């Protein structure tokens, strides 16, 4: 399915993009994603100083040597934003690189040459993911837009934008004057030219932090209304993404109904969490024992080489094996207070977690929520 190929392309290119992002955005990214790695106290996520590299080296995790070759640390936020289309980086100080040692392992050792970097798709999705606050940026070239003027050097400006996009509210003040500057110049220059119905946009060099928005033919060129229009389009873009996120909302037209559905969904998810947590509380004393048992059983399974079970959700692509590295410094850097856990090798825990997902996704009835393997079935 083309979507799978796209996914793979996206995976590879997003990893390579993260490569660049970590270079440009080290200064911005303050807290490590992985709270486990940054156990030194930045669990609150507000530590400004813990860069990924430093933390990793401090931890003395054995995978570091591999990791240091490979600088990309896809941040969880970026992953979420790329997958859902939402930019989580609005809180600029919160975004931080984190370590996915196994992920880095994969990319380091095996970069399948048969993957074509789908640059256009990447840049499109990355653009969708960036949502700088203060500037007038039309960051989401709609798929139907005929104009894709961001062609060459896509990734560089995109990632710069994304890093700058996290500038936060302090950019708000600059919004108005820049808007007028841009849109005024544009509308003046282009009004005489016959245009398509879709508004065209062009990304300037990275040093300019805004996107010129042209006035549509026959529409007001007032900078305020242009800004309004851009904002409205951004909002509707987000609504569309939310629509994809909430199951069963494909046919809904209308903002209010859509918001209703979102409210319902959020409430039901929260109720589920509450219910599950109560169940967890009742079952709690037995959990550890069972996990121990199951984990030890799994060790045997692993030895027999049924590792192919892992990571194969419905519709997932062919997995890439790679020689695992062991991480004696636990991936979980949280001090392990529980005497039951330390004997467990970390690799087993990772495998177990993947198995959990297998079971969780395939075994449970999904209450019609479609939480099935992938968050959204990509068909």
């Amino acid at each position, binding site marked *: 399915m083309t979507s799978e190929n796209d996914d793979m392309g996206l995976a590879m290119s997003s990893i390579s993009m993260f490569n660049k992002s970590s270079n440009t955005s080290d200064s911005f990214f303050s807290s490590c994603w992985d709270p486990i790695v940054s156990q030194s106290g930045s669990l609150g996520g507000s530590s400004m100083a813990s860069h990924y590299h430093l933390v990793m080296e401090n931890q003395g995790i054995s995978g570091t040597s591999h990791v240091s070759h490979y600088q990309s640390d896809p941040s969880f936020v970026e992953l979420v934003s790329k997958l859902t289309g939402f930019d989580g980086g609005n809180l600029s100080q919160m975004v931080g690189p984190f370590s996915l040692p196994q992920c880095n392992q994969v990319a380091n050792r095996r970069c399948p040459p048969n993957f074509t970097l789908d640059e256009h798709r990447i840049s499109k999705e990355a653009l969708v993911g960036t949502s700088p606050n203060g500037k007038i940026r039309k960051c989401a070239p709609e798929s139907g837009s005929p104009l894709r003027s961001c062609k060459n050097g896509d990734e560089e400006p995109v990632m710069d934008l994304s890093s700058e996009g996290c500038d936060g509210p302090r950019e708000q003040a600059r919004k108005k004057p820049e808007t007028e500057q841009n849109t005024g110049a544009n509308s003046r220059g282009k009004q005489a030219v016959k245009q398509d119905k879709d508004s065209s946009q062009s990304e300037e060099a990275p040093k300019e932090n805004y996107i010129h928005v042209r006035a549509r033919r026959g529409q007001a060129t007032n900078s305020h209304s242009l800004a309004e229009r851009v904002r409205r389009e951004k909002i509707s873009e987000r609504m569309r993404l939310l629509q994809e996120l909430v199951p069963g909302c494909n046919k809904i037209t209308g903002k209010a109904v859509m918001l209703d559905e979102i409210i319902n969904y959020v409430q039901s998810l929260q109720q589920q969490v509450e219910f599950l947590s109560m169940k967890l509380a009742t079952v709690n004393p*037995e959990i550890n024992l069972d996990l121990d048992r199951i984990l030890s059983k799994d060790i045997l399974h692993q030895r027999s080489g049924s590792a192919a079970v892992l990571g194969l959700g419905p519709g997932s692509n062919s997995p890439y094996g790679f020689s695992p590295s062991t991480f004696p410094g636990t991936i979980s850097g949280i001090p392990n207070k529980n005497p039951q856990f330390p004997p467990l090798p970390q690799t087993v825990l990772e495998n177990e977690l993947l198995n959990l997902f297998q079971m969780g996704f395939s075994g449970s009835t999904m209450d019609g929520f479609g939480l099935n393997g992938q968050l959204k079935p990509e068909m």
Partner: protein
Amino acid sequence: MKEQRRVYPMEPRTIMQTSFAKTYLNYLLPELANIGKPASSLSVDRYVDKEIEKTVRYEVDMALALSAQGFAWSHALEHKLRLNVNNNNQVGKSQSYLSHDGYRNTMPVNHEPATEKLEGNPKRSGTEAAAEEEERLTYLRKLIPGGSGEMMLDDEILLSELGSYVSCLELQVNVLRSVLQLN
């Protein structure tokens, strides 16, 4: 150390899921174990059960906040949890960060149109719709942790945060369900 061949899917979505699950459980399971220990002796005492429930809920929420750093809501959630812990150390009632149980079941459903604008104004439905939307957005602000903060006043940001919040809630539900299924 025995070498194990581990197989990982390359999909970013699965990577996200598994990394979330790992972080989440790495935090949660040891914490739960700590909770479980003092209660290993059968306690039929309802007060203690409520305490355990409350603590479990706290840990569940904290695990979510820590596993999904980088969002405004996760930051707000963590902050709120820590604040609640400091304030409510002795209280035994089960408390979640959704401290607004009062209105949770009352959904703002706007059946009747606004009564003021009854003229045949084509804009009327527009304004009604806008008002409805605003109402719902306000409600959503109450649902999402940190929704009352100034950052969420911006609709764009609110919708973004909602997207990530919904995704992470789904992840959390899946992880919790999986853990429970193991038993």
